[in-house]
């Protein structure tokens, strides 16, 4: 260690001292960079080649040799600036292959990779010298057509698409008709940013898919469909924020016993509400569609499971004693999620509410969509003591056969049959039939959407075991159910 120099340069004020120290730091930084440069210069010639290769790799897609997303963004930015400067119009396309997944799954990844290279060749043949193509990820490609009006771009892209559709892709004697969903966006002097234009092209591409795939969709800012999709994107952001800021709130709705078969304990369904920062409250119908479309249901389901378990356990033991069934809704995504079982078991180990008091509600369509995987999950959870209800029964397949394959305890008869029972004999027959079959199979039945005393009485007459709906008990904060349990409401 070198000796420490004497302290206190009194002659310098703080600013001069800081500047002198910054000069020292700058000298050190410069020395460090010079050292790096010398080290680079001393390396062999092939190292320089390697550096060139690395630079190429940094801007190009390895599989297709096209530009990568980052480099594409740089070129797009350049075109936005050009438009702003001289008013020129360019075109941006977002292209998503329609058959890629099928080729990948039926013929393997090699065939998929080859398909991407094959499409690359078609694009390069069909594009002009100044046009740019990029692979943006997976089976998504981006195209930039410089100095090209929207009408001209539509014509050229339609022709390119026709070429793609007209040339079947062949892999080991199998032939695939390859199409693409294409979103087209003009780049004008009003173009806001790279992110904005890419998002617009993505939305247009998505709409092309929704309209039946294999088509070109031009983005129009005021189009109702685009507005709807933008609205969904806004919900996605809000859902993320709500999860981060823990602003979801659990509500509950009591389910009341009607028949002698019904259990004695308190039975309620847990519902979810989103609370805005200013206290405004949103029903799931506002945000679930966006959550489903953008893959957020998994997080929402987990949030509900965890917070519900935590909230139940936080109540006095007398509450858990009086609790018969707490119903928690599960989405189709969670039914197909291989890690969901572990998550549930972990939460209920951490917050040990007796599993028999928890009933997961699933819709019949969700169960059927993932019957194998859902069946396995339900069996495992059932083995741990959890119970299940089939929600909205009657609106989907309405088939009783698969009821034997999944271990449900409750059948919840969809509210639309209940509402019109008085006037529609078919609805009444449906309720009667579901109730009877449910009982034969040893299940308990719940009539949903009970909105009047008359409907309530009819359910009782038919022998339905439970009733749920706003007439029976409107939804309220979860805390209200504690009051019900305590008998104070």
């Amino acid at each position: 260690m070198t000796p420490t120099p004497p302290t206190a340069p009194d002659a310098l004020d703080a600013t001069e001292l800081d500047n002198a120290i910054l000069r020292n730091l700058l000298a050190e930084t410069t020395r460090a960079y010079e050292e790096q440069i010398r080290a680079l210069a001393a390396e062999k010639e092939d190292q320089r080649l390697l550096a060139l290769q690395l630079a190429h790799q940094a801007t190009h897609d390895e599989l297709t040799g096209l530009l990568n997303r980052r480099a594409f963004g740089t070129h797009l930015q350049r075109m936005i600036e050009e438009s702003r400067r001289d008013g020129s119009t360019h075109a941006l396309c977002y292209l998503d292959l329609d058959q890629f997944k099928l080729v990948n799954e039926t013929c393997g990844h090699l065939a998929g990779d080859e398909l991407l290279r094959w499409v690359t060749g078609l694009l390069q043949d069909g594009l002009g010298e100044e046009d740019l193509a990029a692979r943006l990820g997976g089976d998504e490609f981006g195209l930039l057509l410089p100095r090209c009006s929207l009408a001209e771009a539509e014509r050229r892209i339609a022709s390119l698409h026709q070429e793609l559709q007209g040339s079947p892709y062949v892999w080991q004697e199998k032939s695939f008709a390859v199409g693409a969903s294409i979103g087209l966006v003009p780049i004008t002097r009003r173009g806001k940013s790279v992110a904005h234009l890419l998002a617009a092209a993505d939305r247009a591409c998505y709409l092309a898919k929704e309209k039946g795939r294999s088509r070109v969709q031009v983005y129009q800012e005021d189009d109702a469909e685009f507005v709807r999709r933008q609205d969904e994107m806004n919900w996605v952001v809000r859902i993320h924020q709500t999860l981060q800021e823990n602003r979801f709130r659990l509500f509950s709705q009591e389910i009341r016993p009607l028949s002698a078969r019904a259990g004695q304990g308190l039975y309620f369904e847990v519902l979810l509400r989103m609370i805005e920062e200013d206290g405004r409250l949103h029903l799931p119908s506002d945000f679930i569609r966006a959550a489903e479309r953008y893959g957020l249901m998994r997080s929402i389901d987990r949030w509900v499971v965890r917070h519900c378990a935590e909230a139940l356990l936080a109540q006095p033991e007398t509450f858990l004693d009086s609790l018969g069934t707490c119903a928690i809704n599960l989405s189709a995504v969670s039914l197909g999620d291989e890690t969901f079982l572990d998550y549930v078991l972990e939460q209920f180990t951490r917050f040990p509410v007796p599993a028999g008091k928890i009933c997961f509600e699933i819709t019949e369509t969700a169960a059927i969509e993932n019957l194998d995987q859902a069946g396995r999950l339900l069996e495992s959870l059932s083995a741990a003591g959890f119970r299940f209800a089939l929600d909205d029964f009657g609106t989907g397949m309405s088939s009783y056969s698969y009821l034997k394959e999944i271990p449900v305890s409750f059948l919840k008869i969809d509210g639309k049959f209940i509402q019109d029972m008085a006037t529609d004999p078919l609805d009444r027959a449906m309720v009667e039939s579901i109730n009877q079959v449910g009982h034969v199979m040893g299940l308990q039945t719940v009539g949903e959407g009970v909105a009047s005393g008359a409907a309530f009485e009819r359910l009782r007459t038919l022998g339905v075991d439970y009733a749920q709906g706003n007439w029976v008990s409107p939804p309220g904060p979860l805390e209200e159910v504690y009051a019900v349990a305590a008998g104070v409401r």
Partner: protein
Amino acid sequence: MRSRTVSLPSGPCPEGTLRAAATAEGRDPDLVLGFLPPDEQLPGTLRTLAATWPESLRFGCEADTQFADAAVTRSGSLQLFWFELPGHGATVEVVCGTRDEPPDEAAVAALARGLAQAGGALLLADGVRFPAEDLLGRLAPCFSRPLPRLAGGLASQRDPRTSEGGRVFYQDEVLPAACLALTFRGVSLRIKVVRGWDPASPVYTVTRAAGTALYEINGEPAVDWYARFFTVDGTLAPLPETAFRFPLILEGPAAERQGVYRTMRSFDDPKGAVTFWGSLHTGDRVRLGMGNQVSLVRTAADLSPGTPPDAAILYSCIGREAVLGTMAGDELAAIQGALGGASLSGFFTNGEIGPSDRGGLAFYNQTAILVLLRELPEIPELPKRSPEPRL
């Protein structure tokens, strides 16, 4: 929630001043948060608070410099809170321990459960004796993500070279070595981390450190390493004072420590070591940062608090106080200006607690942690809809 800040006069705390502060609200405050000078007046002040508001929840800490709205003071500040809605309120948990006898596992686990359940808390720790950074390190693994929102600071002293001051108090009692956790019911808590430092050197690796002592950087004795940069015209600049304007920035490799600063506490004392107000680990990647009063005030002025809070609390590092000097009030005024007139209290701390950039829990130096409090509105009646949507 209504809140009001009281700047105390120097000398004994007059009961009349306290009563006058609460008169406009028509009742005693539900919660009294105090940042009081570490001097002989403290026991008397606590007695006066108890006599004036015997039913209020009272807690706080010793602080050499305090904030009362836009004013910087050294004679103490109080922040009074009234909750609007029934059922809303606050609870204080006390955890005791020293560096030699840290809180036991059961106490840490119980605290973690309470914090997780509340979803967040304000922490005030003894700034001299209590092992606050160690506690954070033990709490973090107890939480699942997202972590509860935790923010706070370590009580400060008049003279950091002594072991005097830096204590916390709860109701009438000054605690010998403790950490207080204030959890709320019905109050939203948002946290802003205010920095204001820029990188000023290449990145180096800590090759030997233990606790808060740094011995070697890139294989070079830490004292020599600092001396290389802080020697001007053959003379070593006054340390640690000068280094306040050049804090050490942690760049990794642990993701949870990225963006955390360390303020120098002593140079070559003990011999061969540079000590800091927070820990350094062997293997940490570090660089020197730079800043001055202008960059700190500018960062504070750029603050965007979002929804206006009912009240705010600022925990700002004593290292920032040293850099800000006479502009300490400017930083405070910039922050209060951004809050839309909400009451603001706080103090210059011996270390700050707040969220890390990666959503973890960090022990900061040279940083200001701003806590924004807002009482949540009552949940409105639902419009009746049928059938009930899923979930």
